[in-house]
């Protein structure tokens, strides 16, 4: 009996499982190497000379790595303007999607109104609509709105989207009703309630989910899909005249292969703007994370919720008393 109960020494357990562990580890390394290979090739090639990029058989590691290609990028593209354009598009669309989705998500999560569920279903259905389906009329609608050949024409169709509404609704449903009711009893207007009570409560969750999901799904993808429209819309807005204003021409230019480093994540203005935004969101999250935990833990504890509502009320009235 005693022998059976004695825990098996860790070493022996390890030895028994070693072949399986080694197999799993080998698989992990193999998959990781295959997945990382194109990325590594991209970085290596950006350091090669033009001759090396064209040689047969291919050169794997450049003989004398140089940053010439990165310097040439500045000659071929007017980087300042392109970065500015991408930054404007990224910031304006992301901010607008944030605000419009927050408002609509709040209405769907916490209001009861006629046709709520059918309306939500119809909006969500647009998530599954390929952008190409709306492209041809969109091309003319943007023209009717007088937004041709301007950044506004790229930004305007991207100020709201169904995915953002869906995401916000899911998060806002987790905010306790008591918190909202308490603020409402204090006479907070609906907009103030949304931005001062609900938004801070969902921001930590958003900081974690929003950038990765939204940035990929909503912004980059749609901005890229809009490239079709953009041949007409952005002629004067994007980059160097030698590229005819079309981002698409970057890859087709004679020095094409050298230029692709522009699109490396570190060089992509959209990604950079997003990472700025991410860190800003994270800072916000840090400030309110304790608050969020309190909310989550107190969810079912009405006494403490009401105590907090009373505290909020007290703080509100003291703030109000401070005002002249």
């Amino acid at each position, binding site marked *: 009996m005693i022998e059976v109960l004695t825990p098996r020494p860790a070493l022996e357990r390890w030895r028994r499982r070693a072949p399986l562990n080694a197999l799993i580890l080998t698989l992990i390394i193999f998959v990781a190497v295959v997945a990382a290979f*194109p990325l590594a090739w991209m970085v290596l090639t950006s350091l090669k000379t033009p001759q090396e990029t064209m040689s047969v058989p291919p050169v794997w590691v450049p003989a004398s790595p140089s940053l010439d290609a990165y310097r040439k990028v500045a000659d071929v593209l007017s980087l300042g303007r392109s970065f500015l354009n991408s930054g404007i598009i990224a910031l304006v669309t992301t901010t607008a999607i944030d605000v419009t989705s927050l408002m609509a998500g709040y209405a769907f999560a916490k209001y009861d109104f006629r046709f709520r569920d059918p309306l939500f279903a119809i909006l969500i259905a647009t998530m599954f609509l390929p952008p190409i*389906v709306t492209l041809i009329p969109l091309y003319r609608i943007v023209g009717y709105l007088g937004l041709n050949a301007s950044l506004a024409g790229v930004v305007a169709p991207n100020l709201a989207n169904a995915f953002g509404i869906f995401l916000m609704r899911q998060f806002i449903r987790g905010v306790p009703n008591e918190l909202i009711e308490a603020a409402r009893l204090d006479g907070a207007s609906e907009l103030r309630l949304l931005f001062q009570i609900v938004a801070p409560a969902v921001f930590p969750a958003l900081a974690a989910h929003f950038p990765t999901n939204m940035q990929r799904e909503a912004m980059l993808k749609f901005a890229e899909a809009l490239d079709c429209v953009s041949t007409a819309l952005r002629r004067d807005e994007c980059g160097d005249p030698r590229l005819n204003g079309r981002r698409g021409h970057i890859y087709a230019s004679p020095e094409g292969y050298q230029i692709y480093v522009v699109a490396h994540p570190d060089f992509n203005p959209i990604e950079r703007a997003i990472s700025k935004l991410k860190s800003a969101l994270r800072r916000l999250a840090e400030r309110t994370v304790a608050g969020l935990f309190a909310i989550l833990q107190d969810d079912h504890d009405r006494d403490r919720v009401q105590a907090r509502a009373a505290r909020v009320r007290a703080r509100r009235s003291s703030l109000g008393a401070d005002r002249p």
Partner: protein
Amino acid sequence: MAHRMNLPAFGMLAPATGLIAVFVFIPMALTIWLSLQAWSTQTGFETARFVGLQNFIDIFGPTTVGRDFKTALINTAVYTALSVAIILPLSIAFGLLVHQKLAPGGVFLRTVLFSTYMVPMIAVALVFSKLYSPTEGPLNQILQWLGLPTSAWLSSPQTALASIVLLNVWQQVGYFTVLAVAGLTQIPAAVLEAATVDGANPVQRFAYITLPLLGNTLLFSAVIAIINAVQVFEPVALITQGGPVDSTNVLTYHIRRVGIERAQGGLGSAMAVTLMLALVVSIAALFAFAQAREAGE
């Protein structure tokens, strides 16, 4: 919140709904309307002329228009089927590798896989066009080292579409792996332990416990994968422009070419409507299949 709040709800919904109405619903309705018209994209909507179902008859007819469209439709269908059939099993396999606790490196693998998903498509397209290069590309060189036959990749009509599928798999599998891991973590450990106690081996545990419990995750993954695959546009536009010999001419690219470049707005809209219907039918079929499976259990 029992009381009805029509007015504030209207205010809260107005910005998002208004924008989506102007830039999604109205264009969608116009697309459906335009699919029944003869209309040049370069002119105003008032020049559209009603032609009934003629556009649909044309795109499914025996003329060049019809042949090109049917090629694009088949290419998109093949591309979608291949992508989903490769991505879903791979995502589960990689998900198991990330999720397992025996060997180290799971989180590292997830990071590497997901990083490919974060690379912008323009960079992916350029790198892969170089990787695939038959003479100066490293892929053929590796195949030679391994003693395998080399491939023409993007330059042959037989292999071009499959090469684009491979590119797509490489870029997207990380995202679906993360979804699979999320599904795997939701499977209660107690169920798997119970199966182990009952003497189930790892293969049986996977086939009879893990896989069925991943059903909802797989359904979601399949829907997203189908939608992504049907929308493929960038790699085709950036690398192959539909060639060689239309072998990679997918629907999205073809619709843009007909509807915008050739300004045949009516024909392009009819193709877009067909694409939309095909998507609705396939996703509805997928959900029906999932429901039938659930009901059968």
